[in-house]
């Protein structure tokens, strides 16, 4: 009888014969799920995978420690202080400045930060570096609040500090359905090569699975395939799957990274068309539909922004916007650099609103900043429209990549700068 049970907080279990992977189980959460506690095997030199698993275990242990203390109902301050310290110890490890040996640790000697340090301290920058960086930052923030909790005067001070710490730890732990920083350690293990257990079979993530394996491509796990059939198949890590595909006698669990990998696989395929599919007529090669250049500001704003520029920016950036002491801010040189460096509108917006003028950053009014952004966009030949450039930040700006605007622009000068009216 086949059955699949999946629950967000426990390792997924898939029934089937023969394909049993050891379950790495963690303290309180495992006990809740009713599965056996399997002590982690200690290799002489831990693999990246084991180190990441240990880091996650330490974070989970810290969370469990403070959650348990919270549920205890104790009225003894020392009980809560000790719980905070044990959580700190699990996060920092014995080398950390806040470590206090007497309290013991909810985790292991290296601590989550010790494990993260071992993973990040290398020349290469794998795709899992970003979520681990985020986890590290969040763990440090949590430690700061746990340190406060250690000498809270009243229980409600303790609760506030621990709640703050808990929010950071939950982000550091993350979840298997997210990539990047919000996926945290759980997401990194679910979606990147960090989650491939030692000795497991690895296949190309762009290909269809033909045997039980982890489908890996460009550092991401795209899918996990287990053999279909009677029995229990336990997975070492959460796969974060949104769906389960049964095909070719395989049970395939696509991860949250599957979409990212599919995109990369397609771009590889497009770069090298197989001879059989090469079009005979060159006109058959399709180009992606050109997305229209967005209209991001109004003409009135650009005119007002010209005044702001003339009074606050021109000394360093030049009346022709090509820079005297500072870089160019519009025109061919600026847009070429923006394109090469992958600058988005968000990058420039942040720089201007927060770091400019250079010697008096963030000193202008939001309206002045919005106006000068409008002026710069106009000078870069971006079209004006009905919607003003907002004073508040817009998350959509992170998707607007800056670069030369195609087409002919009336009035464009030799620097590639367009008039603002």
């Amino acid at each position, binding site marked *: 009888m086949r059955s699949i049970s999946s629950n967000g907080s426990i390792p997924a279990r898939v029934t089937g014969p023969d394909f049993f992977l050891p379950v790495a189980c963690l303290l309180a959460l495992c006990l809740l799920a009713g599965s056996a506690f399997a002590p982690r095997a200690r290799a002489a030199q831990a693999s990246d995978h084991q180190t990441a698993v240990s880091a996650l275990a330490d974070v989970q242990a810290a969370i469990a420690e403070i959650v348990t203390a919270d549920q205890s109902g104790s009225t003894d301050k020392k009980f809560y202080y000790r719980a905070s310290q044990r959580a700190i110890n699990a996060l920092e490890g014995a080398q950390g400045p806040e470590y206090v040996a007497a309290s013991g640790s909810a985790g292991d000697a290296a601590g989550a930060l010790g494990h993260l340090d071992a993973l990040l301290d*290398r020349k290469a920058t794998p795709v899992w570096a970003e979520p681990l960086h985020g986890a590290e930052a969040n763990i440090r923030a949590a430690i700061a609040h746990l340190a406060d909790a250690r000498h809270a005067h009243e229980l409600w001070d303790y609760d506030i500090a621990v709640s703050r710490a808990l929010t950071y730890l939950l982000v550091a732990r993350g979840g298997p359905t997210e990539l990047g920083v919000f996926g945290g350690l759980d997401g990194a293990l679910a979606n990147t090569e960090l989650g491939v257990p030692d000795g497991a079979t690895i296949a190309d993530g762009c290909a269809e699975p033909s045997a039980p394996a982890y489908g890996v491509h460009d550092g991401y796990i795209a899918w996990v395939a287990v053999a279909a059939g009677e029995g229990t198949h336990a997975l070492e890590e959460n796969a974060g799957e949104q769906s389960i595909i049964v095909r070719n006698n395989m049970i395939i669990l696509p991860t949250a990274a599957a979409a990212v990998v599919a995109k990369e696989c397609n771009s590889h395929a497009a770069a090298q068309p197989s001879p059989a599919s090469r079009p005979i007529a060159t006109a058959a090669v399709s180009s992606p539909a050109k997305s229209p250049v967005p209209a991001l500001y109004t003409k009135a704003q650009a005119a007002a922004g010209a005044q702001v520029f003339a009074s606050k920016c021109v000394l360093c950036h030049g009346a022709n916007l090509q820079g*005297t002491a500072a870089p160019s801010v519009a025109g061919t040189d600026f847009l070429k650099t923006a394109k090469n460096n992958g*600058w988005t509108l968000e990058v420039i917006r942040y720089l201007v609103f927060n770091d400019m003028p250079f010697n008096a950053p963030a000193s202008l009014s939001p309206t002045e900043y919005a106006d000068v952004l409008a002026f710069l966009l106009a000078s870069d030949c971006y079209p004006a429209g009905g919607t003003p450039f907002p004073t508040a930040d817009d998350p959509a700006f992170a998707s607007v990549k800056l670069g030369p605007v195609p087409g002919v622009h009336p009035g464009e000068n030799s620097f590639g700068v367009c008039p603002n009216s």
Partner: protein
Amino acid sequence: MTLREQLTAGVACLAPAALGLSAFLCLGAGTALAQSTPNPSDFLNAASDPANWILPAKSYSGNHYTPATQITPQNVSGLHLAWKTTLDDPGPMENSPIIYNGTMYVTTAHDHVYALDAATGKVKWEFTDNPHVIAFAANRGIGLVDGNVYIGTLDGHLIALNADTGQKVWDKVTVADTANSFYTMAPVPYHDPNSGKDWLLVGVSNGDWGGNGNITAYNPQDGSVIWSWGSIPGPGEPNHDSWGGDSWKRAGGSMWGGVTIDPTTQTMYLNVGNPTPDFLATVRPGDNLYTDSMVALDISGAQPKLKWYHQFIPHDTHDWDPPMQPILFTGKVGNTEEKLVATGDKAGNYWLLDATTGNLVDHTAVSFQKGQDTPPSLTGNYACPNTLGGVEYQGGAYDPATNAVLLPSQNECGFWTADKDAVYVAGQFYIAGAFPKLVGPNTGQMNAIDVTSGTFDWRHHFDLPNYGGALATASGLVFSGNLGGTENAFDTQTGNILWSYDTGAYIQAPSEAYEVNGQEYIVVASGGAGNAAIPELPATGQSSIVSAFTLK
């Protein structure tokens, strides 16, 4: 090799044994016998030559001291403008002119190079460049060797120009990452006695943009790398653990303040820049070696080896690095003559170290300091000096007659804010915050610091920053320009100003002394204010100007 074989070889170096000389004399292929560029013994003896100025800080010692004595405290009031040349590239002027055999080579903010007649200021040739500017447009000068003028550019090129004609000889991109790396410092020629080869020493500017600093020796013939020394220890290297996690990968530590060399011990002294991200130090737990340090390198082998380091500010949170070329000198501490090396930093400190061991001899605060133990917060807080304050890159001098170090310093406070996190964006500052908002007082002073006691012989106050460095003369004068545009001559003993001249543009470059046909001149560059602009600056011209002064 016979002497004849040596002479007919491509680059012939005549060994001392053959000629009984105490230094090498090298003839580069194709150079005329009336040399247009200095030879190795010229560089080694630069400090004792009043006529030429062939290294950015006069000699390898970094001591802006001239043996010229024609201009004295008694006659300096008669100093007048000999010539003033306006150059056609506006921007801040940070240039230290290189002057040899009557030709002066100057550079402007966008990497134009001009050869001027040193007696008249007439332009002999101009090389025009148009580099992309990553952040700051500035160039601090050229290197002159092997028949060529060498410049490092804002877009990461090393360019060789023929010294006589200004024609390009070769042009090479020599930075590892053009998105975040560029050059401003003057390349420094050095003849390595062990290999017999000439080196061109350049440090890359990339520290505040997410790169790691290095000093590299290039072959002047073609720009190929001879050796490179990085300031940030990688995995497995000593002191790598002073960087938490992988923060060492974008660590800063640029070395663009100039190169001091002791040829007798084959030791190179370098100041190392600040760690990054500048204002969010939680990203990089640890002391962050070797940022904000002076390092002494043994350059006698194929690869430099670290002899000692002295870190001035561990785990810097405010971009308070020591940006100037170290001043190496033999001075008196009490009754003992000692080999010493002096520097200042942007935190407003003067440091005096034992040149052999790197041990601290003296530390004196030379600027108003406040809030230096508190990192920039998210909501913002005050600290002094700001990044334009303290002691800046123009350097200073040691005067043996008064046993004093002459060094200007600035009092500028700032309001800093840090970001919640540090995000690297190619081509942008990697500082996790904003450069500080200027809050005043924006004043400066010229300091004379007694080497024995570390106290001030005198201080001369200015209402504006004094970024002109210090040129000391054997006749008892100190020359330094004030940001407002005035070039001043001080009496070295008393600090009284004996002569002033308003150049008509802002000064943030060191002064120099040279001679043509036995006549002494003082020269200084002035130009736009650039990012040194403060609200108190009086309006003046902003053209790029070179002004030369003389008695006759």
